[in-house]
């Protein structure tokens, strides 16, 4: 194994491949940090550039883009409260309040370092645990997926900060929006109102950037014509704050040990499961961190725990997503689906035989992943001050430019204006819900998990001929159903405990 590892490193540690990794990480960070442009899009747009390269160089570039893209999302999430990618939605919840308080440097430092460790450890998990973990992942069928999705939905309670009914309703609104389009299993059209363009449903990207970016513009516009209103540059300017190194102490980092380990495991496991990735894991890790915290009320006010949970888990999903790709040939998320295409273009088909047939390449991928994470840490550390400088641009100039970039991102999905219209629809919905005091995080979780619940429930019932009992007979599914029952019981107990001392 060690000689393969050395050979893998040797094939990556050439000037050309290293330069491609650095280029990939830098471009990835730029794509990740611009709302509307994602790691998936960065990889998709750069695949044609790799046609003339050898496979090690090509995959190294794409890995750099992936790692940079996933991590870059934290920049805009913290600095302008708009997630750069779906993977950094939960980073907004505590990162943005920290930035508003003048701790942008610290929030970014925490995000960058925990992204690095989350990602790096997931690569080591990929190297050492790949075969056994992928065998377990292969055992996941509709019952298990259904049970996991139901369990994840119970976490909405901890994301519903002020009002539980509003949080639950927001989740159902998200599920409702996901119904639009072709139904799973029988492909019947639902709620398309005769509009052909709606038959493919709403894509997650316009939903997210609509909910965050367009809503942010509307919030900024609110009351801005009032006579005598002064543009408060101090309010809009994000202070870097006094920052040494990454802006936080080792003692602060050590308080996050448990949070880090928990979020890492969530990120890794979600990454391994095909179909879901960093977009889901960051929200789940945040919700779990909040529900397990001794001070859940502080979440959302700007504490590093929220940033650690979100950023550790989303980068841990990177290594996780590679696991089924390399060992089974099944992509874990959209970016690894693109990478699968990249492999096939160069004549390599990932699967159980990859390690024996292309061992050197597999270890070169491991090496590229490790190096890409180190490059990401260095680039983001040196770029930290530059990113914050970009925010010296007044918001009335910055926000419209961001919206234009969001339009490019939404249009680029399918070369169709329907996705741009969805951006507007979800922007309006987000603004309306904000005004009514509904949290947006449960809506996103409902939108992502709703189709997973429905597809696997229906698929499972087709397997069993309509009988629900076999769902409980599978050990993994039963475990998650038990966890669901415990989670619901805990929520009820917490609610009872909150009410009883005051006698309300």
């Amino acid at each position, binding site marked *: 194994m060690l000689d393969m590892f050395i050979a893998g490193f040797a094939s990556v540690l050439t000037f050309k491949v290293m330069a491609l990794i650095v280029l990939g990480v830098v471009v990835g960070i730029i794509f990740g940090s611009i709302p509307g442009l994602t790691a998936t899009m960065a990889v998709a747009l750069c695949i044609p550039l790799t046609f003339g390269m050898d496979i090690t160089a090509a995959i190294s570039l794409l890995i750099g883009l992936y790692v940079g893209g996933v991590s870059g999302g934290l920049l805009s999430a913290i600095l302008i409260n708009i997630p750069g990618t779906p993977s950094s939605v939960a980073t907004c919840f505590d990162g943005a309040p920290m930035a508003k308080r003048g701790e942008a440097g610290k929030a970014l430092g925490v995000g960058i370092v925990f992204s690095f460790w989350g990602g790096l450890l997931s690569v080591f998990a990929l190297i050492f645990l790949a075969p056994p973990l992928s065998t377990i992942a292969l055992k996941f069928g509709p019952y298990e997926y259904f049970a996991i999705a139901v369990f994840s939905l119970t976490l909405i309670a901890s994301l519903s900060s002020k009002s539980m009914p509003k949080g639950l309703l927001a989740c*159902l609104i998200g599920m409702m929006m996901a*119904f639009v389009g072709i139904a799973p*299993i029988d492909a019947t059209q639902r709620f398309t109102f005769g509009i052909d363009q709606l038959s493919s449903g709403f894509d997650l990207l316009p939903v997210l950037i609509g909910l965050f970016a367009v809503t942010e513009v*509307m919030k900024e*516009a609110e009351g*801005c014509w009032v006579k005598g209103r002064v543009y408060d540059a101090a309010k809009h300017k994000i202070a870097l704050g006094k920052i040494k190194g990454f802006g936080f102490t080792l003692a602060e980092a050590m308080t996050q040990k448990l949070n880090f380990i928990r979020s890492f495991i969530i990120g890794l496991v979600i990454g391994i499961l095909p179909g879901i990735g960093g977009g889901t894991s960051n929200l789940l890790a945040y919700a779990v961190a909040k529900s397990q915290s001794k001070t859940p009320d502080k979440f959302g006010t700007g504490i590093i725990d929220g940033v650690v949970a979100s950023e550790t888990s989303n980068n841990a999903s990177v290594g996780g997503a590679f696991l089924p790709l390399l060992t089974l040939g099944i992509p874990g998320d959209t970016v690894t689906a693109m990478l699968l295409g990249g492999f096939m273009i160069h004549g390599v088909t990932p699967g159980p035989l990859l390690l024996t047939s292309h061992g050197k390449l597999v270890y070169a991928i491991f090496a590229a992943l490790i190096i890409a994470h180190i490059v990401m840490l260095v680039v983001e550390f040196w770029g930290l001050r530059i990113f914050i400088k970009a925010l010296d641009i007044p918001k009335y100039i910055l926000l*419209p430019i961001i919206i234009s970039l969001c339009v490019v991102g939404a249009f680029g999905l399918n070369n169709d204006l329907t996705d741009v219209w969805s951006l507007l629809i979800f922007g309006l919905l987000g603004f309306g819900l904000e005004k009514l005091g509904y949290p947006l995080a449960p809506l996103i979780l409902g939108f992502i998990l709703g189709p997973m619940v429905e597809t696997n429930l229906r698929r499972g019932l087709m397997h069993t*001929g309509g009988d629900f009992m076999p769902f409980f007979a599978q050990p993994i599914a039963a475990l998650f159903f038990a966890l669901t029952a415990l989670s619901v019981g805990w929520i009820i107990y917490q609610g009872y405990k909150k009410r009883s001392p005051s006698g309300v």
Partner: protein
Amino acid sequence: MARYKDILGGLFWLAVAIGMYYASFSIRVLAIGSGSTSFVGSGFMPRLVATGMMILSLTIMWQSWQKLKTAQTDAGSNDELSFREKYLPVLASLGLLIAYIAFMEMLGFVIMTAVYLCGQMFILATPEHRKPVLFVAISVVSALAIFYTFVEVFQLMLPENRLF
């Protein structure tokens, strides 16, 4: 008005839920699998979600009603901005966004982006920060830079007209 926002919001979502429940019956049911699975056809989840939405919107309305009954004193006290003052710029931004998307196919990405950027900057900036020449310059340069970066470098397709 602000006092009744939860009741009005609840009413809105209740209406949407009833509409969805009703519309779910028009979803075509295909006979797939054995007959016993027909109860989880494509209309099952929408009906389940609609029922949940109805219960929750009624709960929110009831909770809000209870709050209104107990705290009747601070009737619309601290809303210092009128509805018009608050939401006119929001509506202007919305109108501009609709125009941006609606005319993009006809006029192309570059022209519409420049127009949108300029208009949105004017809406968001306070009168003393409105610098027409700067706004126009930034808008045109940004629109061209975005267009050429994505179309020329990344080979992405964006709506074009004959000019751009």
